[in-house]
């Protein structure tokens, strides 16, 4: 579990909130990677795109379409925020897969901050747009009247569980993947298990590449779904 330890970049000592740590390092690398992918690659503004520009356009189109499809036309205003979340999670997930790297998204503090940010902004947005009409998302009009209070209770609980599941899903997936690889790496010191262990690490690594993308996608699409609830609280 040592790979998850936060340590200061310069010297030893207590870690204050402003101390530059390995978290800082890998987040700065994330910013640089996103800059390279989305800014540098598009600097020529080519009508016929280069490979890197194609990828940038693909990511843009992918998230733009997701926001438009899930949250609706009026959700497109929030596209930059959702794109920010997606790019951050995607790139940190991938960077975390580099051996000896520090996976920032495997920490609950990071994912919970993002999930709470999404939860709070979506809730505030809902009340700001619809006033108390936002509470309609808990009151299911199509259900038979006697069932509605029960359903409302369930809806309220599920609403408040959202940020928890939202954050733990991402952190848990990332941590689990890294931990499994670590476990198999531990077996690799035994000579007659080593081939199996290395094969397993390779396989798990491939799976983790997939999971990195899928978790970024899931986090983003859930954000879009919550945003849709805030924008259109009527079922």
């Amino acid at each position: 579990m040592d790979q998850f330890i936060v340590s200061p970049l310069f010297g030893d000592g207590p870690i204050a909130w402003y101390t530059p740590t390995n978290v800082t390092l890998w987040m700065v690398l994330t910013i640089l990677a996103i800059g390279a992918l989305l800014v540098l690659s598009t600097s020529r503004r080519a009508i016929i795109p280069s490979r890197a520009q194609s990828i940038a356009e693909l990511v843009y189109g992918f998230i733009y379409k997701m926001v438009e499809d899930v949250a609706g036309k009026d959700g497109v205003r929030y596209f930059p925020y959702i794109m920010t979340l997606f790019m951050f999670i995607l790139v940190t997930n991938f960077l975390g897969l580099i051996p000896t790297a520090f996976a920032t998204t495997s920490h609950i503090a990071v994912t919970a901050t993002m999930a709470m940010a999404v939860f709070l902004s979506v809730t505030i947005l809902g009340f700001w747009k619809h006033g108390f009409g936002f509470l309609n998302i808990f009151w299911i009009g199509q259900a038979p009247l006697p069932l509605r209070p029960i359903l409302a209770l369930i809806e309220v609980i599920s609403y408040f569980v959202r940020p928890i599941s939202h954050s733990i899903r991402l952190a848990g997936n990332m941590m689990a993947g890294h931990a499994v690889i670590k476990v198999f790496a531990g077996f690799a010191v035994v000579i007659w298990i080593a081939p199996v262990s290395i094969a397993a690490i390779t396989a798990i690594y491939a799976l983790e590449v997939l999971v990195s993308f899928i978790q970024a996608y899931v986090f983003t699409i859930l954000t879009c779904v919550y945003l849709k609830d805030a924008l259109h609280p009527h079922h």
Partner: protein
Amino acid sequence: MATETTGFVSACIDSLGNAIGMPQLCAEWMPNQVFWLLVTLVVIYLVLSKVALPRIGGILAERQGTITTDISAAEDLKARALEAEEVYNKALADARAEALNIAAEMRAGIQGELNDAIAHADAEISAKVAESEKAIGEIRASALEAVKVVANDTAAEIVTALGGKADAKAVGTAVTSGMKGWT
């Protein structure tokens, strides 16, 4: 990321630099992580919203515009090609009609000439036939006349030889009535 030399001990790291429990749940580090996360997210947001997204959106819009313009230009060219083809087909049809006309006219002209020639030839032939018939009639008449003279002479000679007296007038009448069926 553990460093063996660290002597620093906290709630989450023991004196050997190993993690105690799950480092993910170490509350001591959370302010640091949250702070740097927020800084990172703000920087990414600024980079995306000020530079990257408008630029990519612009590129995509520009490409869409180019494609639309090209397609409309292509459609324009296609329409013009169709128009040209129509004109060509019309010209072809006109030319064909004219050719047919000329052929018909030619045919009519030739037919007329032919008819004239045939009429002329017919006229010539009928003139020749009439002439020939006339000649044949003359020949026949002269032949009859000669037969009549010979018959008269022969009849007179026969009457004389038989001891009668040949009355020229009576003989002529008899020969004429005898020859009545011939002509």
